[in-house]
């Protein structure tokens, strides 16, 4: 126990998954091992629906908490004190657990001043003869007697001290740092997000990854009509996403050949919708070459002209696989709030054009009919613009910056 830090990790929904449970837990343990791979001698063990992380005491708790709490599938994590009660009589074990709880509270009072507290206990090992309410009240009594500066408050305590008894070990811990919940990455296939550089698409990617989907990204630009800086911004966003999603491969394609053809051949009001259909067609190709079973977009119903119900129907028709739109019913303020939480917001609002205003129609069609759009699209030389656009394809794997 000396020289070691222990953390209890609770797996959210993965605990409910019946027969898949071992698989999800195994995957989650692997994900946690991966984010802690920079810290040697770190162990991740599974035990009765919980994960236990053990590190040397040289590893700072905040590094472990930050990294583990952002692994999808983690419901919460607590730094804990472990008491080895294997082969010990129950009364003796309770006294050892009490010693640890008293020491914890003494340290807390020394650190934070007088405190109100409440002891909460859980007995996962039903062989243990002392019941949870008794464990709590007996340990609470010892703290009151042995720890000056403490007072009981069962409604709104400063410290909610947990004293849990499991088979062979008991644990004292205080905070639960919330994770994102969700499912471990890699348990739900791989999707290709259309990453624009705006606020919405990184959030969409995050939400899908949160359900266990691995993420690749495709970015469409129109250099020299858009700037290198805006491409740089997309790399930056992918870097932030990779903190949660692991390394993100970004495919960049210059879509200018399509825009030029549209400008020369098609009615102006269909520009935006034709460009979006073109992006989806290219995304189909990239997705199929990279084993992505779905596309992901940041569309939100009615947010802009190209995201009306009618437009979405017309754009969707160009996809050859399911298009996930996790933001479809979210309000902009809520999308922005999530973007702030995951850290993409500040980068997303940098003022670089993501689609040059040269190509913004004055009056875009907001209720396009599929028939009209298809007849406008027929004026394009699809083979030519696709070939030209694909010539510009560049792929790069972006890694988290703080974990290189």
């Amino acid at each position, binding site marked *: 126990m000396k020289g070691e830090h222990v953390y209890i990790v609770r797996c959210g929904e993965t605990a409910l998954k019946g027969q898949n449970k071992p698989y999800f837990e195994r995957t989650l343990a692997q994900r946690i091992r991966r984010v802690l791979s920079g810290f040697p001698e770190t162990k991740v063990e599974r035990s009765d629906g919980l994960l236990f992380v053990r590190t040397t005491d040289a590893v700072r708790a905040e590094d472990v908490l930050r990294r583990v709490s952002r692994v999808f599938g983690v419901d919460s994590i607590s730094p804990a004190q472990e008491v080895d009660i294997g082969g010990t009589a129950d009364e003796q074990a309770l006294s050892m657990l009490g010693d640890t709880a008293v020491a914890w509270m003494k340290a807390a009072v020394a650190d934070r001043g007088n405190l109100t507290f409440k002891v909460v206990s859980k007995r996962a090992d039903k062989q243990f003869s002392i019941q949870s309410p008794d464990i709590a009240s007996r340990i609470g009594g010892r703290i009151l007697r042995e720890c000056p500066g403490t007072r009981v408050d069962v409604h709104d305590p400063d410290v909610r001290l947990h004293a849990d008894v499991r088979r062979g070990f008991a644990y004292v811990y205080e905070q639960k740092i919330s994770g994102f919940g969700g499912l471990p990455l890699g348990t739900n296939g791989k999707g290709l997000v259309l990453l624009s550089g705006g606020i919405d698409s990184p959030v969409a990617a995050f939400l899908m990854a949160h359900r266990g989907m691995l993420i690749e990204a495709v970015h469409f630009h129109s250099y*020299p009509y858009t*700037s290198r800086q805006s491409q740089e911004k997309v790399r930056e966003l992918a870097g932030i996403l990779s903190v949660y999603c692991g390394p993100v491969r970004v495919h960049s394609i210059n879509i200018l050949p399509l825009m030029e053809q549209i400008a020369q051949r098609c009615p102006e009001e269909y*520009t935006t919708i034709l460009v979006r259909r073109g992006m989806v067609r290219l995304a189909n190709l990239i997705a199929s070459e990279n084993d992505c079973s779905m596309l992901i977009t940041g569309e939100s119903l009615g947010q802009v002209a190209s995201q009306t119900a009618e437009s979405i129907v017309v754009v969707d028709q160009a996809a050859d696989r399911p298009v996930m739109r996790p933001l479809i019913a979210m309000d902009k303020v809520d999308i922005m709030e999530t973007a702030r939480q995951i850290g993409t917001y500040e980068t997303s609002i940098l003022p*670089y054009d993501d689609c040059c205003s*040269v*190509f913004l129609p*004055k009056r875009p069609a907001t209720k396009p009919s599929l028939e009209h759009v298809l007849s406008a699209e027929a004026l394009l030389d699809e083979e030519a613009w696709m070939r030209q656009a694909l010539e510009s394809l560049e792929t790069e794997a972006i890694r988290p910056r703080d974990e290189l």
Partner: protein
Amino acid sequence: MIIYLDHSATTKPSAGVVEEVRRTMQLCYGNPSSLHAMGLDAARILSEARSTIARSIGALPDEIIFTSGGTEGDNQAIFGIWEASKRQGRTVITSAVEHPAVLRACERLEAQGARVIYLPVNRQGLIEPEVFQNALTSDTILVSLMHSNNETGAQMPIEAIGRILSEQDSAAVFHTDAVQSYGKTDLDMRRLPVDIVSLSAHKIHGPKGVGALYVRGGTKLSPLLAGGGQERGFRSGTENVPGIAGFVQAVREQSDHPEERRRHLADVKSYLRERLLEEISDVSIHTPEESIPSILNAGFPGCRGEVLLRMLEQERIYVSTGSACSSKKAGSHVLAAMDLDPASAEGALRFSFAEENSREQMDRVVEVLKTAVDSQRKLRESFGKGRR
């Protein structure tokens, strides 16, 4: 082959400058304030540098303070004069087309209670002496007007304004930012009626992070930095000896056949100007006749400067634009102050020249630019017509 036409942003340090910086760093790393022989060696470099810079503008060595460059010089001048003179008056006169180092500094003075007058410019981008005369009051303690403009090259009537100041017997201290003019036109402190002048090394093939401030003897100025009292108390901090040595090397190289150099710049500039007007339709020139020979600003209506810049960049031609592409960013405050046709300002490019540029290069620039302008105009036209 790179064609670099962004010399007003910065220049490539000459081989001699690089060598001088390297040599000083390796051999003369003593602190000029140290009392031993190595300190003395470094102090000698400083002293010679001071004389050379002074000589290049007809000043005395004691009138030169070394700084980190143009921004520090402008800030030191503006805040230093304000601190020293704010009891004599509260009015500051500057112009709408100054460098941000002057404009932002003046805004800070406003927050401290100064009344700042931002003189307008005419359609040529020039300040008019009569406009200045009307703004001048006995309450004016500081006049800060640039010697030449960094976006258009417009050369301001500094001498006429200095004459007005002395005719009116004004007590105002006259500061001019001559960063773009230095080496491009005569700056002679024996004739120029100014008190404080900002200079920078990296616009004349010197190193970045070093410059000088000329302060006429007797001018009241408070220092910005507190510390060891270097530079006669005006600029505390161990002197950037290698940078200063490089700066002086650049000045020496500039003073070699200065007339010939300027004639060459002027030739390249007027050649580009003519070729643009001949080859590309509907070009507007934003640089007036009264301008330094190193800058030409031109507008290409129907285009966006930023997109043209990137089209040129693809052919390894590097220029700059003061105008904005996105509506989220403010456009060039200089072009806005000139009240130009918005389309012309939106499609503005700045070409800025140095010795290495040639007529042949300008032929190539015009060729690439013509294609770029045509394709952008064509695209915009076909798009704008609302086909069908």
